[in-house]
């Protein structure tokens, strides 16, 4: 029994990080309707950003998230500005498909550039939290995971507050619901896209900072998370922030608890079975809005 509880706790903690990464993807998709296949590559950029901040400045990994966030906001902002915006502007009707091709291509370019720049070495950072464990009633809870989880929850609350209560946050939501009407309100939709992309990348920066104390960094590390993120986003409901986070928790739980009962190689299939079952029952995802 302890084993199962331990697995459940781990599943939730890890699921929180999956959720955070998926929230970023969901936000960008929900607002700009961009299917961002470069998401994993951006996570990798975020991880390397955090890595270099930690290596060069030797600050606390959780503090590094703020520094990385500043840089990554502009990275995301100009990523959208330079690569995606021109296509959205030029190809009004066929842009969706082109953007998929574009982001897939950018993924390869970013990953290969990282390979050239940083080499294929696996890197890890020993932080003050690495390998630290809290023992609670016979359960080992890994410190960096718990801290990462709690901060993820806080971050998502902050994001929701921003979207609900601030003028620009409202503009982001408005643009996601009706782009043309948003323009009529005086909202610069392309700026909303850029800022949203920036925010999404900042979230990845935080996810990277939460991962770094117990993870490794490598040009292809994004591949480990990106497939899962798409599943989570659809499971949670396209464009829903809370849904994406919840979806992350569910996938984390299935992955961790499921592996205690069946072979982990089968767990992937289990995730997809749950995923398909959910979509049959609720085609719009857990917290998705019905489409008219």
């Amino acid at each position, binding site marked *: 029994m302890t084993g199962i509880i331990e697995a459940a706790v781990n599943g939730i903690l890890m699921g929180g990080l999956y959720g955070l990464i998926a929230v970023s993807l969901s936000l960008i998709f929900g607002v700009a309707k961009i299917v961002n296949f470069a998401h994993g590559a951006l996570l990798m950029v975020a991880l390397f950003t955090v890595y270099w901040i930690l290596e060069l400045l030797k600050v606390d990994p959780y503090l590094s998230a703020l520094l990385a966030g500043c840089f990554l906001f502009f990275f995301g902002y100009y990523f959208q500005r330079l690569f995606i915006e021109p296509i959205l502007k030029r190809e009004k009707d066929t842009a969706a498909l082109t953007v998929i091709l574009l982001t897939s291509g950018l993924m390869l370019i970013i990953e290969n550039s990282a390979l050239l720049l940083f080499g294929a070495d696996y890197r890890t950072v020993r932080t003050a939290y690495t390998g630290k464990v809290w023992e609670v009633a016979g359960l080992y809870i890994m410190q960096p995971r718990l801290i990462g989880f709690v901060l993820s929850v806080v971050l998502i609350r902050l994001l929701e507050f921003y979207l609900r209560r601030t*003028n620009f946050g*409202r*503009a982001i*939501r*408005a643009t996601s*619901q*009706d782009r*043309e*009407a*948003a*323009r*009529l*309100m*005086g*909202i*610069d*939709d392309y700026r909303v896209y850029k800022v949203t992309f920036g925010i999404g990348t900042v979230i990845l920066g935080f996810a990277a900072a939460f991962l770094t104390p117990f993870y490794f960094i490598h040009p292809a590390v994004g591949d480990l998370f990106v497939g899962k993120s798409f599943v989570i986003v659809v499971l949670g409901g396209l464009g829903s922030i809370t849904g994406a986070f919840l979806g992350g928790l569910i996938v984390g739980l299935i992955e961790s608890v499921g592996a205690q009962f069946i072979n982990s190689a089968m767990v992937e299939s289990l995730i997809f079975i749950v995923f398909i079952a959910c979509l049959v029952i609720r085609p719009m995802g857990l917290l998705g*809005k019905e489409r008219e």
Partner: protein
Amino acid sequence: MAVLEIEGVSTFYGEFQALYDVSLKVEEHALTGIVGANGAGKSTILRTICGLAPARSGSILHNGVPLERLSTFEIARRGIALVPEGRRLFPAMTVLDNLLLGAFSKPERESREKRLGEVLKFFPILKKRKAQLAGTLSGGEQQMLAIGRALMGKPDIVMLDEPSLGLSPKMVSHIYRILDEIRELGITILLVEQNVEWCLKKADRAYILENGSVVLEGPGKELLSEEGVRKAYLGL
């Protein structure tokens, strides 16, 4: 002086030409009406002014400033508010959020709160529904919200695209009453309306559109008394 001056505007949707050399003027504090059959290009005029369907040729001046090269959001920020056909509210946001979005480009808290108070006073029903999602409102309430949202930006000119469309007769007359009140506030209105009689009766100046061209213009009441108009549009 004309708030809005449109001169020789032609607009295309792809290869299809929707407007042919249209010219019209919107005078300050006046109600300007545009009437015509379905597909005559009434909505296109409003969309062209807003930059949603940019003109291929011709000029549009707002207080002497050309609008043709501006984006929709820049035009909106100049104080040109459109209450679009189908209302185009943000259905998954609250009534309050919708109203606040109307003031997006003028977010200074104090003046925004003041206008919000005014608008809610103007539409008491919206005050009651403040926390409700816009998508859950009735058609009439939605139309009021759309108008209220437009007023939140303290617009120079309000353009309404068929505000009575799809509403119950009772609600239609309610909306008409509201338009009267708005007009009494001295707000410049450009109205596209399917109810030709009502529109011409109220309009200080009206334009009749056929197949994308202006075929008649003049003070609303004058047009209303013209034989041809009565035959074509009022079935009399």
